[in-house]
């Protein structure tokens, strides 16, 4: 199948190096300590953060750092066919783990010993790249909750189809069966916290694809920073400073 036309356009009209439209919004769930909605094209994710708070299960409490927990789920209506998605299936456990580990790498857990931070992410609408969108939403929500972080973690995927590296795959491109590289970085520190790929790719091509994904992450980081800045300005305004 032709994913990039000879004119250099992808199926949805983007060029290979272009991302989908992104949108982030802070404070979607007022009950939570921090929350955010993040959209990448038709992929829409909501994240809520509770904490730092007392550890619910005493046995898990750690005396030198905070406990980070993450729960990922997909809304029943997130895909075209409305199916009851069982909780705790393999895929969500794996993604929960991925998100938890990525976020743990940037939260300064040692500042909050004997406490717990809960991150809940739910996919409202899925169109490829849910993993990345969840991480971005979680970052935004953590920032909203005021949890100390080393840097903003952002994530973006890239793939390789029709011998072309493609940024930010949507569902059709994702299900083409080509490699899908998901990268998460700490944009200011320039450190990689997440790198996943479940296909084979020669080293030199892989480097190009990963570089592309990293560029995508940086662009998202800039955008998230803008959103946060705007949010802070509004808070300032509300407080009348």
């Amino acid at each position, binding site marked *: 199948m032709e994913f990039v*036309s*000879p*004119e250099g*356009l992808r*199926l*949805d*009209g*983007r060029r290979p190096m272009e991302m*989908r*439209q992104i949108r982030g919004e802070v404070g979607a769930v007022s009950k939570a300590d921090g929350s955010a909605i993040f959209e990448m*094209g*038709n992929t829409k994710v909501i994240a809520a953060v509770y904490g730092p708070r007392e550890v619910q299960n005493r046995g898990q409490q750690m005396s030198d750092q905070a406990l980070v927990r993450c729960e990922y789920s997909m809304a029943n209506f997130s895909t*075209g*066919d409305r199916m009851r998605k069982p909780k705790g299936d393999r895929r969500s456990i794996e993604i929960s783990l991925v998100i938890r580990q990525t976020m743990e790498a940037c939260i300064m857990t040692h500042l909050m010993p004997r406490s717990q931070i809960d991150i809940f992410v739910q996919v409202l609408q899925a*169109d490829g790249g849910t993993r990345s969108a969840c991480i971005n939403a979680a970052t935004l929500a953590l920032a909203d909750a005021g949890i100390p972080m080393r840097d903003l973690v952002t994530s973006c995927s890239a793939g390789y189809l029709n*011998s072309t590296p493609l940024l930010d795959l*949507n569902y*059709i491109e994702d299900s083409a069966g080509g490699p899908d590289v998901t990268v998460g970085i700490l944009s200011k520190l320039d450190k990689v916290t997440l790198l996943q790929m479940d*296909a*084979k*790719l*020669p080293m030199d*091509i892989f480097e190009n694809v990963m570089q592309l994904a990293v560029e995508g992450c940086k662009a998202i980081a800039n955008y998230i920073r803008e959103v946060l800045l705007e949010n802070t300005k509004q808070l300032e305004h509300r407080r009348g400073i």
Partner: protein
Amino acid sequence: MLQSKSFVRKTKQGKVLKVVREHYLRDDIYCGASICKVCDTKVARLSSSASTILVLDTNVVLNQIDLLENPAIDDVVVLSVVLDEVKNKNLSVYNRLRALCSNTLRKFFVFSNEHHKDTYVKAMVGESPNDRNDRAIRVATNWYQRHLGGGTRVLLITNDKENKRKATDEGIFAETVETYVKSLGQPNLLDLVVHPTSEDVGMEDVEDLRPSKRKVIYIEHKPMSEITAGLHRGIYHQGKLRVNRYNPFEAYVGSESIGDEIIIQGRGNMNRAFDGDVVAVELLPKEQWHEGKSLSIADDEDEEEEDVHLVPNSADDAPRNRDTIQDSSSTVNPVSCRPSGRVVGIIKRNWQSYCGSLEPMPMPAGNGGIAHALFVSKDRRIPKIRIQTRQLGNLLDKRIIVTVDSWDCLSRYPSGHYVRTIGEIGDRDTETKVVLIENDINSRPFSTQVLACLPPLPWSVSTEDLMNPNRQDLRQLRVFSVDPPGCRDIDDALHCTALPDGNFEVGVHIADVTNFVHSGTPLDDEASQRGTSVYLVERRIDMLPKPLTEDICSLRSDVERLAFSVIWVMTPEAEIISTRYTKSVIKSSAVMSYVEAQARMDDSRLMDPLTTDLRNLNTLAKIMRQRRIDRGALTLASAEVKFQIDTETHDPLDIGMYQIREANQMIEEFMLAANVSVAEKILKHFSMCSLLRRHPSPTKEMLEPLLRTAAAIGLDLDVSSSKALADSLDRAVGDDPYFNKLIRILATRCMPQAVYFCSGDLTPPEFHHYGLASPLYTHFTSPIRRYADVIVHRLLAAALGIYKLPTIFQDRPQLTSIADNLNYRHRNAQMASWASVELHTLIFFRKRPTDTEARIVKIRANGFIVFVPKYGIEGPVYLTPKGEKGGDWVVDEEHQKVKKMDGSISYSVLQMVQIHMEVVEPQPNRPKLQLTLM
């Protein structure tokens, strides 16, 4: 700007899904006109001098692609909406249009109107997708006109009346194809225009003079919805229609749903389906399954003729005789009688262009110079095609190409249009071109991009190559090659050194083509498309450009050449102790022909080192060969012939069987061994993506003709395994010295073809090569002339860690499609060489009526098929003149005998007869070889 497309789709399980997709609109899509001042003109394709720019409607592209390929049509804008529609409707037209768009000599520009912010149209409520697309085309045309201003006229070409009317209302210039082509003032272009089916009345008188005009000849095809429903319920069966190569009134549909082939008899039951169409078939009631052959011929007036042809080399090419199959099934196994059916609908058409000539006809008077003629394809599987032409006188004695446009149920023949002329009928060059076109062989010279990939000439081994740690210097070895006389593309060489411990070091050195043909280059793409070199009688069509084929890669004597070597250490009993693979530099010390090599080995006075090497190799080869035969490898015989060609006129001077010597077998043995060793190595490293070659075991049905013949002459053949077959073939020795070979030739044609495949697609037991009795096999030894070998070279190099594995190997579907293409090209190349031999046989006998001896290989109702060993051809001999029924001859099917009523004369299978061969011309310009009994 973001738009979202949402539509509803039904899944395979029958669920209804709503699909929402993003659709981005852009402002950086350019118009492609080089005169445009606003747009980026870097990618502009439309010429600056164009006063008219054409925008095509989908129906124009779909129907008039032949016209578009004519260079007279240029400065065309192809809208992406049109491309998408064409892609969905007809993939082959789409590919041709894409080729036009990427051809730098043509001025076709693709405008992505669907993603342009000004030309995107959203479907209105209640608007059908078709209307929406038509509107999109009009909007885009309008945008072009406004964008380019008054200086250029933007013309919408459409054959859709409604679309044209709306366009004119909106102030767009619009014309139909006919009026536009007429306005160009080139009358010959008009022949290329496909006419809508409204003009059938005029053609009736050509086709049918009987009073029952406008009779419905074929049953109306069922609508698609009914077909789908029928397939679902199991009433209809879907499959690809394959027309019998030797009897165009019989076809087979391989159906998965009933797991057997359905026979379709007669044009009526085929119901306008062409060879290769995907059709829906309905089974006939069981009592009609045994309909006689006479019926199928009687309802068509065409006389069925059997031509003289070359001896087929595998079961796929051999004519299938329905009578024998049916008879045997009724006597031996009444359950297995085969289902017959009729076509109720065509799911996918496989219409292509066909090569052939017009049926001779008188020049019609008047009618404005337009004549209706019947086109007869060279491919017998294709029915006659009606065309209309303005240049009848010109075309009558020409080979032309014609495309099919439509076939409605009122007309006996499909209607089509003329595409182009190839040349005079009977002219050798023309006929050779026809052979090439028919077999889809690209004989065009290599493009400049391809030639740019070649290393500069004169080329020689550089010090870099010698310094390369991966490349071993084997120049000190006494390497030599043995090939057919006059061979210029030498891709293999051998060496054999006696080691002090009594063992031998034997090396097979193969030209290192992949050192020059790198993956992903235009050169590589071209080679992968061509797949193989094609050997015709008088010329060779190379897979790689000549400098590579004949110089840089060719392992000529006394020059240093790069090679890829497989080196074994063997015991004197030809047991392989160790195998190693390496890239190397060699210097061949001798290039010999098979005859020379044989002469050296046979001459006992010669004791020089080279001859000793040859003898050692020959001893080893004999042991290896014996071992292979003991394992069950088949020794099959083919009836290959060799022409002697006049160097100036290129006419054949003499013709004879190709003789196989010990030297041939020696070389073959080592090549087989190298291929097997390489297959083992690459499969060990790349179990999922190796390219291997397998030869499936013949099915019972394929062996049926052989067994029948054998039974008729009282020979007992055991076909339970290749070993058993090989043994019983060895035992089949009659009092007649040629008998054994004849049986082997008959066995050969019962074998299926060997095919390339990707190891990930099949399970290891299926890798088996039946003919060679080897669990693994691949092609490694001829990279100059076969692309499969190039791939295997890359795999082997990657297995040795010399190169990285090219990315394509990660993509299994792509590798599979390459393997499929190789099989297709390989087969076509074979067909082309046969056709070329057939053509030259005809030319040879044109001036030389000959008497010769022949063998009866099959008995027919009115004669028998004979095989002429000396010339490797096969053809019918009629006992009774054609048209007359049976006469006083009686056929005994079981004993394969034909007897005269009074019992005075009888002929039986494998009997020797004297025949007379002569070229006759029953119709002008249609020469054919006729065999008559003396």
